[in-house]
């Protein structure tokens, strides 16, 4: 575990620049505007939450940042280099764990190293990543044998084993039960504090954004525009009953159009 943290610290956290990005889809001849002139910069090592209603285009922004799609207009830059294709330096963790069901937990975690031909020299990192998410006893289990929380932890380990400089998280705790979600949020916060990657978290849960992120960016309904940005100047670990926390939550909800809370 310590070894992973040490080695990960060597991997530099990356910056992300989103410059005037707009995007639309053509579905059955109808044009759907998804993103409307989004500009956003993430410093290396920063933790930013994108908050917005369901289906507002947050996931699309992450797909663009991951390089899975190119924006219609605007550019995205990783450390001042334009993002043109997927790269293991920035990894995407989905709402569904999307584990490969035919691979054991160990082989799922090994996928990135195997795909890049790094398996021989970095095989020890797999065990370290598994112990980091406390799943070393399930290395030889198949995904169907795991609970939802365990599967999502495997998905995290599968990303972290590649020492990403930028982690893109698409509602990764969204489908978990509330208790599992709380413990995974805490675990993830520790991982971020230790490994020091840049994190961009998409969520529709205001408390999750406030518990984890240093900055919360509020998006409008589709097509998504940036409505407001909130700095979260609170120390970790944060508490939900902190007066500042409550005030921020009320302000953000107000900005999202929810009154009287």
């Amino acid at each position, binding site marked *: 575990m310590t070894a992973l943290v040490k080695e990960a610290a060597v991997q530099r956290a990356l910056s992300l620049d989103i410059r005037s990005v707009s995007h639309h889809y053509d579905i059955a001849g109808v044009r759907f505007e998804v993103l409307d002139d989004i500009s956003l910069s993430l410093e290396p090592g920063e933790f930013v939450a994108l908050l917005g209603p369901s289906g507002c285009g947050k996931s699309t922004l992450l797909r663009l940042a991951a390089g899975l799609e190119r924006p219609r207009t605007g550019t995205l830059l990783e450390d001042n280099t334009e993002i043109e294709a*997927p790269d*293991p330096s920035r990894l*995407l963790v*989905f709402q569904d764990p999307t584990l490969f069901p035919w691979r054991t937990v160990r082989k799922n975690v090994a996928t990135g190293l195997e795909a890049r031909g790094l398996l021989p020299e970095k095989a020890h990192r797999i065990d370290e990543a598994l112990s980091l998410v406390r799943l070393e006893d399930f290395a030889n289990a198949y995904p169907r044998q795991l609970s939802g929380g365990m599967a999502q932890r495997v998905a995290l380990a*599968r990303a972290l084993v590649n020492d990403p400089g930028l982690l893109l998280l698409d509602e990764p705790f969204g489908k978990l039960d509330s208790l599992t979600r709380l413990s995974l949020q805490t675990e993830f916060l520790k991982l971020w504090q230790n490994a020091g990657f840049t994190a961009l978290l998409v969520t529709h849960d205001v408390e999750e954004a406030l518990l984890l992120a240093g900055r919360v960016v509020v998006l409008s309904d589709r097509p998504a525009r940036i409505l407001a940005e909130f700095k979260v100047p609170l120390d970790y670990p944060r508490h939900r009953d902190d007066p500042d926390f409550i005030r921020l939550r009320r302000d953000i909800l107000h900005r999202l159009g929810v009154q009287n809370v």
Partner: protein
Amino acid sequence: MSDVAQTADGGAISTSVPSFSIWHPGLVAAVFWFLTAAITWGLPDVIPWGSQGLFAAMTAVGGGVLVALALTIHHLGALGRRIAYWGPWFIAVGVWFLVWEYTTAKTGWLPKPFFSPPHGLLQVYVVDWSRLLICIGYSLRLWGIGFFSGITVGFALGVALGWSARFNYWGMPVLKLIGPVPATAWIPATFYFFPTTFHASIFLVALSCGIPVAILTAAGVSQVNRAFYDVARTLGANERFLVLKVAVPAALNHVFVGLFMGLYYSFAVLVVAEMLGAKYGLGWYIAFQSAYSAYANVYATIVIMAILCSGLVKLLFVARDRLLVWQEKGLI
């Protein structure tokens, strides 16, 4: 009073001598097997078939084994329980032998040459075993070369069709047009195109199993959840990795459906192919013996084919269960 005596007796049996419990289906089965042996040996054949004594001895030994099992099966543990499961089948087979033997050899109600008693089939194996062995070898060689070359090409074609849009555009309509045509319909053309009937037969067997494998592999590959590709691409996978390590394993369930279909088609085509211009092989043997109305030989060969084919199907099931351990029991 007698009631009391009965319950006292029953209690005594169940508590003090449980080791003498008897497997009743075994005894019933043994009775039918012994009866078969008795009439086979005791009654004369209407027309002599041969191997009468051998069949009587075999069924008598079978009956003896069943009696022994009836007395000891409860001490055999897991093996005993597995044998006991098939008890009703041992009875059914005994009854079947008895009726079969009586209606054919002993009374002639089902007449020669269209029907043969069980010891008529046995006689075929005793007399013609060496030729049958050669035929089995020839059939397995033809089937093996044809099946494995067919599924190899079919699988590669299927992956290409499922993966590449351009290949799919040109290949799929052709495959959909040719696919439903029974492989045997190509016989006249193949005998013109191939130098020997052996090569033509291999092609027909390969065609029969290659087409379902290609179609189902293509369907499987094209139905793979796109999210798997996204994940693999962000993790640094190149196209080769996406095909071999994502698309193929994800499609494997479909591939096996194609393999099972191809296996059955290949058996059918194998027999037909061998009936045309072959020198040996089970299909040839059946055609040859039918021409002489030697139906006992035909039935004896059908029994061999049934065992061979179901054995190969069983092997494919074992292979599938090993390769697909990661999923819960499939639907095939």
